């Protein structure tokens, strides 16, 4: 069993979503010229956005179930793929327009992918512009067991642990949906802690800062204490930065405990209990022994989830695992860990997790 936890279908353009938009928003999109919501998080022409052999002669990659099934599942021997649409609906500022497009995107992925290939599962995409509407979208989509997760972009307008977001965590827990943060941003803030950088390379590298800060916020605000059943999944986040971040949080928690008296477990324990990371990309040392040391520092074989990040170009060839991850751990990452993270997925496969 191999479960790919981070696959990206691409929406060709907003017109592809029109069948799933109410007529009013369809006409509004035509009249206002909203022809695309592709964001600068993944520019079309960037080599990172699409691996060369998956880039079509014209248009976007990964737009059909047949293509994604062949390139992302068959080619890597995966049995199940979780689809995470990164179309920029989260960048819209109007509550209503953002909610309409998020719903349309979820209905599009259901009609174009879930209904066409039983190996697919999907994440519920929501806009955080209006939390009540985000919760309503979770409730609407959760009726379909093929939706197994809630998907947010890592770069939210406020730190994600803050209480304004708690209704979303509550809805996710009620439906046994992990909440995923994926690389990328709503673009409410500059992508780095120092403001706006010059190059896409900087934007992309800075995603790690964003994830680190979100994990810190979730810890300090007590989200894991308030929602002990919650799983947070960090997608395309990288994970080799994790041990030093946990050391740093733990060190300063020692002296600042009284600020957050609800924190009842160390950050390392909380990560082992409630936070998961997609395997790809691995920003690791080339030497496998050194990568093993990073894994030792993480101290758990339960936190990594298999992913190709298809069609993003994170590695070459058909071997997804970096050297340094042994066979037993590969098996856990490919099957046991995803099944333990996604109870709705496990149930649909006849498991009991």
């Amino acid at each position, binding site marked *: 069993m191999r479960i790919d936890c981070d696959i990206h279908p691409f929406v060709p353009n907003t017109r592809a979503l029109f069948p799933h938009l109410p007529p009013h928003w369809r006409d509004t999109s035509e009249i206002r010229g909203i022809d695309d919501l592709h964001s600068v998080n993944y520019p079309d022409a960037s080599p990172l956005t699409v691996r060369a052999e998956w880039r079509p002669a014209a248009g976007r990659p990964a737009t059909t179930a047949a293509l994604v099934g062949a390139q992302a599942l068959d080619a890597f021997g995966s049995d199940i793929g979780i689809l995470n649409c990164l179309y920029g609906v989260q960048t819209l500022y109007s509550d209503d327009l953002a909610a309409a497009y998020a719903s349309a995107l979820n209905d599009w992925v259901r009609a174009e992918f879930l209904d066409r290939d039983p190996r697919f599962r999907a994440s519920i995409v929501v806009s955080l512009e209006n939390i009540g509407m985000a919760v309503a979208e979770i409730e609407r989509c959760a009726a379909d067991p093929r939706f197994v997760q809630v998907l947010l972009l890592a770069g939210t307008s406020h730190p994600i642990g803050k*209480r304004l977001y708690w209704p979303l965590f509550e809805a996710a827990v009620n439906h046994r949906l992990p909440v995923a943060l994926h690389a990328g941003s709503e673009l409410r803030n500059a992508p780095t802690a120092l403001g706006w950088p010059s190059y896409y390379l900087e934007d992309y590298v800075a995603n790690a800062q964003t994830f680190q800060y979100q994990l810190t916020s979730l810890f300090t605000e007590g989200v894991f*204490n308030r929602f002990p059943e919650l799983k947070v999944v960090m997608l395309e986040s990288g994970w080799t930065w994790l041990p030093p971040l946990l050391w740093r949080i*733990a060190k300063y928690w*020692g*002296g600042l*405990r*009284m600020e957050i*008296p*609800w924190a009842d477990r160390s950050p390392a324990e909380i990560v082992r209990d409630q936070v998961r990371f997609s395997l790809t990309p691995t920003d690791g040392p080339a030497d496998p022994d050194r990568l093993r040391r990073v894994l030792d520092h993480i101290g758990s074989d339960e936190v990594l989830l298999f992913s190709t990040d298809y069609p993003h170009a994170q590695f070459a060839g058909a071997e997804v695992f970096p050297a340094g991850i042994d066979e037993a751990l590969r098996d856990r990452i490919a099957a046991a860990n995803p099944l333990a993270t996604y109870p709705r997925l496990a149930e649909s496969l006849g498991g009991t997790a």
Partner: protein
Amino acid sequence: MASHVVAATAEFPPGTRRVIEIDGRAVVVFNVKGEYFALLDKCPHNGGSLAAGVVTGLLQSAEPGCYSYAREGEIIRCPWHGWEFDIKTGRSFCSVIRARARAFPVHIEPGQTIVEGPYRAETVPVRVEDDYVVVDA
């Protein structure tokens, strides 16, 4: 182990602290609401002087946003990095802190006993009619 006279109880009121030297090491003695407790005056983290720290209460929480402030006057916070210790036991309250501040037994002896017994009271003039705070170390 020897017994060291810290001060007469009458001169060591609640809410105050005294530092004495025992075999070359500083020991801080606290009067917490009429009870006396002693800790090595050296934070187990980096060695800051606990005697120079702030005495606070213990802030706890059942869930985020709920604050329960108890045991006021019973917690010492190291002035260097803010590590908190229970004055009564030396225990810390953060699970990442495994060290505890070293505690010493303290008791009260009548002056009559001190004049007769095996006590060190070089710096404290002892009168038989008073009670004295004594550290065993």
